[in-house]
């Protein structure tokens, strides 16, 4: 047992998984139940049907030690409606955020900030504006931190979607 130190005692690392599932038998709750029953972490989870197929793609961002990630992948594979689990090594990740900001804030500041994160003002009403930005998850986290200054009323984040390069 002594030979696999890295496996047992690795640092926790972030992992992006794509889980391809058949779209029935309440597959999403099976996956969420699995994570909660076995004490695994979900950082983000997105799901959408794969066009022209009977499958859906669930993108899960999780973190854990090497042995935990190994178990997550195996336990996911064990679920009957799961077709395939992909552990991504080299991926493009995108995350989207919508932020509602009161109109009394500096519109030009907000606009510049949004542009810096590939975003724009989406909607303006009499008392608030909605901006959206799509970027790498880390940058979106950053954006949310910066935008706090403008007293956002509401922040909605989509969760990560990912694709292998």
């Amino acid at each position, binding site marked *: *047992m*002594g*030979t*696999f130190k890295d*496996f*047992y005692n690795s640092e926790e690392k972030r992992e992006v998984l794509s889980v391809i*599932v*058949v779209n029935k*038998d*309440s597959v999403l*709750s*099976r996956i969420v*139940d699995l994570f909660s*029953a076995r004490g695994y972490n979900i950082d983000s989870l997105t799901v959408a049907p794969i066009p022209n197929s009977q499958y859906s793609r669930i993108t899960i961002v999780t973190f854990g030690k090497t*042995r935990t990630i*190994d*178990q997550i992948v*195996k*336990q996911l*594979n*064990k679920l*009957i*409606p*799961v*077709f395939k689990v992909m552990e991504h090594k080299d991926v493009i990740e995108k995350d989207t955020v919508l932020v509602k900001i009161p109109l009394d804030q500096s519109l030009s500041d907000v606009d510049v900030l949004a542009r810096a994160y590939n975003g724009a003002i989406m909607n303006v009403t009499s008392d608030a504006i909605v901006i959206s930005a799509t970027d790498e998850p880390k940058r979106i986290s950053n954006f949310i931190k910066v935008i706090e200054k403008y007293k956002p009323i509401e922040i909605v984040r989509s969760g990560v979607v990912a694709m292998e390069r």
Partner: protein
Amino acid sequence: MKQKIDNQLTGSQIVIEALHRENTEVVFGYPGGAIMNVYDEIYKQEHFQHILTKHEQAAVHAADAYARSTGKVGVAIVTSGPGFTNAVTGIATAYTDSIPMVVISGQVPTAVIGTDAFQEIDAVGISRSCTKHNFLVSDVKDLTRVMKLAFYLARSGRPGPVHIDLPKDVSANLADFNYEQEFDLPTYKPTTKGNVRQIKAALQHISEAKRPLLYVGGGAVLSNCYEDIREFAHQSKIPVVETLMARGVMRSDDEYLFGMLGMHGEYAANMAMSQTDMIICLGARFDDRVTGRLDVFAKKAHVVHVDIDPASIAKIVKPNYPIVGDLGIVMKQILEHTKDFDFNDYSDWHNTLKKYRKKHPLRFIENEEGDRLKPQWAIKRVGELLGDKALISTDVGQHQMWTAQFYPFNYPRQFMTSGGLGTMGVGLPYAMGVKRAHPDKISVNFTGDGSIMMNIQEIITCTQYNLPHINIILNNNYLGMVRQWQTRFYDDRLAETVLDTQADFKMLAESMGGVGYKVHTKEEFDKALEDAVASNKTAMIEVIVDRREEVLPMVPNGHALNEMLLLENLGDK
């Protein structure tokens, strides 16, 4: 019910026809509102027997025991709501021990699902975490497929219970029925054959090891390969230890077998596991009751792990040679190549283990004349008197461990016990299911005065369906296993474990058509057992045993496997 057209069947008829085609000979169950359509068809059919238990939990346990003792898929049918929730313990018990079962529950009609209707519960939501898979059938057109897949999933790969939730309208609606149709399941392809290159590499390493050890688990029973394991052990001359679930894979008197390992394992077995340099894990899963303290477990050992379930591999211990496959097939592959390798001489290793066995044999101190009987004696005695003729069930607790230690198990599927979940109350329904599956064998349930009360009502079921068996209650007026821990680790504060108010088990048995005996001496015990076997009735033999007898050896929680409390170094309790 709707008019039948052409060769269409109702959902209920589809259930019956599917069970028939799966060669189901017995169903254990309990009717109720939402499952009545199915029961109406059960009434009309002649393909299988239905056994009405007194409680849904017992129905599922009986189906589980039927499956454990035969290897076939056990079937239970219950109604919605409380019928289903009562069944959950039975399902979870089977799930933890990988027992193939199909459990069908009624559900309220699809139109009212989600309205908190009478006897409605989210059954598939509840069973999701304790089944291999489950189905809520919302359209009768899916039912044939679901029935067929349920049986396939239950018995293939790593076996397990599959639950089908059947709304009342679906069981009444009509659909075509063609059971010969193939249903593809692209997301489920269990690996059955082992990787040959990996097997050869493992054999090479095994043959070079100095102290290899075969660590055999329940997978060896489930995959019906005990003969191949015996042959491999004898060919390679590698010693063997068994888990609780593997009792009987080796003959109890086989000189290669060094007993059961784990928390209450034999000294030699635990020492073998602590000192081996090559663990060959065959269908076991490094359970915490087997490994003891994990960070010091088998530190020097390399590991070969054969398992049908990839998730079992590297879950607890990362093997050097992971082999995913059906152990039955992998053993054949291993045997095919065994002769190509020149195995080391392991006689020193055998001698070491024999020395350990001699130093601390599995034993107990016989009672003095006039004192209470020792529980282990009763178990050993049944072994001497009935031996291979008996199929043994147990409940959960001290008596279970003593049975695993002292009954001479000589073939697999001889021992039915709740290993993983540890469900008290399984014993009597297990003995019932076993008797139904093996009418020519003697079905014996070793139980305690705590466990037996948890499904005592089923005596009357056994009377009704003529399923005689013998319950041997090792009565110490305690919840003995918990009492043992309280004594050791809680300064003998016996919190709610003293059972000093008890039923008269003899009267209890007789009131439900059985026979009862209360025995204090060896002579009385022999006489009662002889009578019980001859009576052909469900018997309760209450044995008044030493109240403070303990299960030893014992690896206390959080200790290494070789840190055992032993009979020899314990003073008076």
